[in-house]
């Protein structure tokens, strides 16, 4: 956690920006609380331990859990963290703080609209619902408010990115020969990846799902909307991860008492994410008919390349904290591990998150392999995997990072360090229980996304029993919920601790600094252009084949909406008339 220093804190130097960061984190944490409650209800329901909802409402719970946590919590935390990182590392305010407030407001309004559409699904008397799950592709259909809210939310994130690019361009005008500071570099590369990735979901929502839910078009092609969703759906994983990486690369070495091992390696990792995050989405569609095996194979090989930045990160981050441990007096081949600040919840949370992320990486390789994916597809293995990645590597890192960042944003100390430490350790233990049971149950064939996983099937367990696994999920889910409550209440009580000075923090320079890396790494236009080319290569043919086979709106459906048909007929007749006149 933040230690006493003689530096002015972030809120002292940038009070308006700190207010934006706090507001973003506040929305993130409210959504974390609601989403975690939904997770508890779900875990206890499907394991048959406690049923307080009707099974018909299970998908409302599941959608709220997924959307509130995987989209709203993560992305609001991201924008808050990135606003802090850009302001801090460039040491300057946004070009126009009103624009900063505008995107924060747009994202909040969008979240409220989408969230309201989901939660109204609990009230039968209100004809609004959005039980479409986090993946929200056809054939499931939500109320237009849900799609409109999502669209506004995403436009808000685009504006946030534009705000950070403007701030950087203004800084560059004053510092033409300087390398981009590492944290700003991470923010800019993340946003390039996000702009490319969200093209898919923007087309899906604005061209297909929103007009469909408004009744403007009668039908959509599920395969096309699924493909457009996964165009966005895989890179969004890196949109969650990259802020966690920012904390691991720039904050964790400092808390460990050392310095980042290599700035150039960190830059290479983020560029690899820009290039490789998007042209891999088809690996989520291995069992989809209508996409040729060759395209799936290309997606698989691209996905395997993504292991490289993860392994580079494992090396760089571990080397950095080892450096910190040795500065603190640690010795020996592994003895340095005991010299790390394990009493500090910020450090321990991030370290445990990284440890479980390694396990999540291994199960991710199974998901990504075309041959063995069939073994686990749509089973409980898959949520087991992403509870290790987004549910721990990202969420636990965000919570741990908050323990370090919050005092700098408020000039108030965290209420209780022991509670914070117990909280991060409890998350680790709860997730070890829950995700283990999910992975094992998935291997036994237990399906995901159902309130009644038992049906009439008999799942033979290789060892233990299915009942034991269900209990394990229930206990793990309960521990995770208690951990969330501890986190939120500790933070709420922190609002009452007395204000004082001395929370300013600096981030020491890397052992190998930016001067050791080629300047081409900072050429944002180049990497953006290569990323677009790779996406075109990966997606042009599969999308072309889907549209060629099924049309834009499904087999046998007019290629354009009935509503605009007269317009097209008129345009056709006019062109034919013109052709006659010319002839």
């Amino acid at each position: 956690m933040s230690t006493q220093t003689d530096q002015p804190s972030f809120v002292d130097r940038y009070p308006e920006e700190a207010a934006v960061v706090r507001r973003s984190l506040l929305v993130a944490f409210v959504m974390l609380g609601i989403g975690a409650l939904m997770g508890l209800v779900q875990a206890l329901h499907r394991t048959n331990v406690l049923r307080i909802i009707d099974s018909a409402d299970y998908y409302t719970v599941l959608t709220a859990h997924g959307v509130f946590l995987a989209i709203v919590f993560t992305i609001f935390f991201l924008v808050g963290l990135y606003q802090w990182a850009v302001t801090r590392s460039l040491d300057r305010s946004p070009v126009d703080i009103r624009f900063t407030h505008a995107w924060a407001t747009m994202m909040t309004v969008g979240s409220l609209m989408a969230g309201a559409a989901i939660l109204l699904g609990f009230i039968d008397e209100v004809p609004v619902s959005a039980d479409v799950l986090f993946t929200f592709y056809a054939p499931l259909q939500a109320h237009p408010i849900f799609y409109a809210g999502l669209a506004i939310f995403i436009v808000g994130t685009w504006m946030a990115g534009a705000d950070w690019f403007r701030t950087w361009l203004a800084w560059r005008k004053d510092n033409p020969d300087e390398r981009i500071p590492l944290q700003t570099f991470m923010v800019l590369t993340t946003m390039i990846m996000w702009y490319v990735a969200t093209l898919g979901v923007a087309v899906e929502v604005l061209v297909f799902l929103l007009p469909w839910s408004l009744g403007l078009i009668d039908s959509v092609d599920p395969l096309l909307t699924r493909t457009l969703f996964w165009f966005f759906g895989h890179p969004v994983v890196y949109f969650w991860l990259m802020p966690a990486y920012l904390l691991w690369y720039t904050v964790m070495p400092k808390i460990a008492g050392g310095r980042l091992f290599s700035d150039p390696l960190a830059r290479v990792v983020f560029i690899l994410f820009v290039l490789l995050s998007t042209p891999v989405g088809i690996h989520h569609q291995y069992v989809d008919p209508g996409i040729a095996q060759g395209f799936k194979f290309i997606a698989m090989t691209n996905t395997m390349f993504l292991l490289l930045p993860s392994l580079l990160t494992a090396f760089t981050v571990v080397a950095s904290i080892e450096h910190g441990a040795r500065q603190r007096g640690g010795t020996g081949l592994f003895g340095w591990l005991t010299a790390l600040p394990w009493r500090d919840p910020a450090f321990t949370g991030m370290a445990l998150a990284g440890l479980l992320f390694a396990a999540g990486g291994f199960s991710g390789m199974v998901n990504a392999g075309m041959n063995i994916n069939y073994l686990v597809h749509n089973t409980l293995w898959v949520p087991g995997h992403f509870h290790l990645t987004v549910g721990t590597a990202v969420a636990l890192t965000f919570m741990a990072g908050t323990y370090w960042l919050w005092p700098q944003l408020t000039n108030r100390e965290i209420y209780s360090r022991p509670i914070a430490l117990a909280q991060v350790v409890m998350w680790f233990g709860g997730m070890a229980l829950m995700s283990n049971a999910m992975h094992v149950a998935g291997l036994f064939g237990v399906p995901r996304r159902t309130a009644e996983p038992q049906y009439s099937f008999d799942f033979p367990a290789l060892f233990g029993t299915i009942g034991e696994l269900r209990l394990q999920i229930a206990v793990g889910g309960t521990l995770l919920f208690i951990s969330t409550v501890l986190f939120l209440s500790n933070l709420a009580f922190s609002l009452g601790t007395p204000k004082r000075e001395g929370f300013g923090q600096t981030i020491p320079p890397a052992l190998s600094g930016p001067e050791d890396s080629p300047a081409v790494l900072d050429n944002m236009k180049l990497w953006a252009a290569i990323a677009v080319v790779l996406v075109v290569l990966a997606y042009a043919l599969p999308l072309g084949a889907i549209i060629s086979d099924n049309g834009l709106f499904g087999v046998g459906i007019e290629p354009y909406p009935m509503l605009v048909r007269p317009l097209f007929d008129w345009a056709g007749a006019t062109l034919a008339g013109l052709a006659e006149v010319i002839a």
Partner: protein
Amino acid sequence: MTLPSFVRTRGGMLVGLVMLGAIGFELRTVAGMLFGIDLPAAPYFIGMVAILSIVGVYLDVTRSTSPDTAT
């Protein structure tokens, strides 16, 4: 007696014991999935928790009487 540094504080002990617990927990999965050895859940986990508790109490007592104890 010189203590291993992770035992010098209760926070370090907590993290260390939970890590050992997670490893012990996963060992049962490895035994079942890789080697086909079905270790009965109740005695295994009760035994594991009992051993970890005894180790924890012993280390805490040792810690509180050692000059290495951190504040």
